[in-house]
């Protein structure tokens, strides 16, 4: 609790302002390092930490025992910093078994908020694929099951809603990335009772602010943001540029934290899922899960600065 009193006045006020608006709920880590930012899933009011963990590419390590241990180590630091939501897909090669290895090794099967996807054009194979995914993760049920990249979404959504009714999953979602098929996604969001939607959004690609994010807010759909660093390109481009001095007023000591906090501070965003295979990066990313979050004026300032230097 002492750390709460150590917050600067500005950070405390920003934090209080966001709390009052219902955006974040404070939690204190065991280590007492600060205020963990969580956001509410609109359909249930369940809280999830605003920074999650993606697994595309980074956790696809095959049967390499050293790499599997490294994945477990990344996950250990993720959980230790308060993280819960891990996202994967059958498309990501061996990422699912790697996550299962980590969960078992760390005894975190009950703590993880599991988000996976169904990814097959043949909806008859969907049930079998989800069963395989459960086995890979070593879980009885998934928290969230999403239709990957809108593939055969009509048939899959019907099955997922039925599974939710039967208690086999807790939430239903749908995903896309790189700004593809947004028109179709909008249509689905308007017509289907989704719990989650996942798409790409970052400080330079803000197309989602026009329709997707306001619509999600209006429809009460939780939003997961993928590709926060444009698959590393954004970080790569910014790493040789100076971080603004005022970044520390929003608790950012690195570009990754700066970019993640920008996304996480959008009122409609529930969780951002950067992917990494490095312990130092997951620790750095998870610092963005702690208050304060930028307010609207600060978000504008962040955009102006990045657009000026890129």
């Amino acid at each position, binding site marked *: 609790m002492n750390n709460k009193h150590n917050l600067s006045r500005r950070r405390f006020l920003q934090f209080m302002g966001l709390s009052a608006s219902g955006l974040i709920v404070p939690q204190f880590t065991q280590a007492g390092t600060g205020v963990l930012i969580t956001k509410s899933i609109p359909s249930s009011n369940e809280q999830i930490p605003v920074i999650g963990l993606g697994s*595309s590419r980074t956790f696809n390590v095959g*049967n390499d025992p050293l790499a599997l241990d490294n994945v477990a180590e990344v996950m250990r630091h993720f959980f230790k910093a308060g993280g819960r939501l891990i996202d994967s897909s059958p498309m990501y090669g061996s990422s699912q078994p790697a996550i299962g290895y980590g969960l078992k090794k760390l005894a975190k099967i009950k703590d993880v908020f599991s988000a996976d996807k169904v990814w097959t054009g043949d909806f008859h194979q969907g049930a079998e694929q989800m069963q395989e995914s459960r086995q890979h993760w070593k879980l009885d049920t998934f928290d969230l099951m999403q239709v990957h990249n809108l593939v055969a979404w009509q048939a899959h959504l019907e099955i997922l809603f039925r599974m939710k009714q039967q208690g086999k999953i807790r939430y239903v979602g749908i995903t896309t990335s790189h700004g593809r*098929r947004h028109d179709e996604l909008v249509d689905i969001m308007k017509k289907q009772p989704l719990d989650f939607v996942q798409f790409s959004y970052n400080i330079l690609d803000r197309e989602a602010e026009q329709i997707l994010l306001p619509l999600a807010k209006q429809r009460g759909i939780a939003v997961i943001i993928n590709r926060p660093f444009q698959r590393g390109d954004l970080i790569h481009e910014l790493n040789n540029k100076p971080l603004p001095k005022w970044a520390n007023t929003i608790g950012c000591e690195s570009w990754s934290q700066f970019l993640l906090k920008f996304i996480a501070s959008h009122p409609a965003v529930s969780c951002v899922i950067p992917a990494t295979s490095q312990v130092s990066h997951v620790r750095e990313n998870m610092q963005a899960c702690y208050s304060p979050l930028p307010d609207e004026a600060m978000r504008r300032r962040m955009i102006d600065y990045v657009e000026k230097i890129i």
Partner: protein
Amino acid sequence: MGELTSYRLSDFILFSQTVYYRQFELYNQFVWPLHFLAIIFALIIIYALWKKPVWGGRLVALLLVVCWLWVAWVFLYQRFYQIHVVANWYALGFALQAGLIIWYGLIRNCFALFVSNQLRIKIGSALLFVAYIVYPFIALMTGRSWMQFEMFALAPDPTVLASLAILLFYKVPVSLYVIPVVWMLLSVSTLIVM
């Protein structure tokens, strides 16, 4: 088509360079000491191309069939498929090439007819040198662990390159070149964007 053009090749490569090369390190440990057999295969092929014995063509074809099927099953399907969701199709392509070599090399004995074009022979010899001798040292030359070496008869790239080189020595149908050329294009693209 609009959506398709929004994809980059890297969107389909869902593994890192580190993980890719570690596959060769683990694979080399797994197949040891078959590397000696691979060297014997390579030497037999050189002998057959040089001395042109009557039985040489069919033996070269048989050895290539073994190499392509081995790489298809043990590397591409059993190992690479773990990290690359389309590697099962690659394995199928390699098996298909083995089938074509069986048909043209073993059944129709096309590998009995040598070309006389010196340019083809020189290019073939150069490619064979790269596949046999240079390729295994690329890992070391690029600063990776020597254990990540790729060797003819065991790893896909040097096997395909050596096969292309060997085909240049013979009067064989163009259809035998299709899969090796497509593979080299795929492989080079993967290495560039990985």
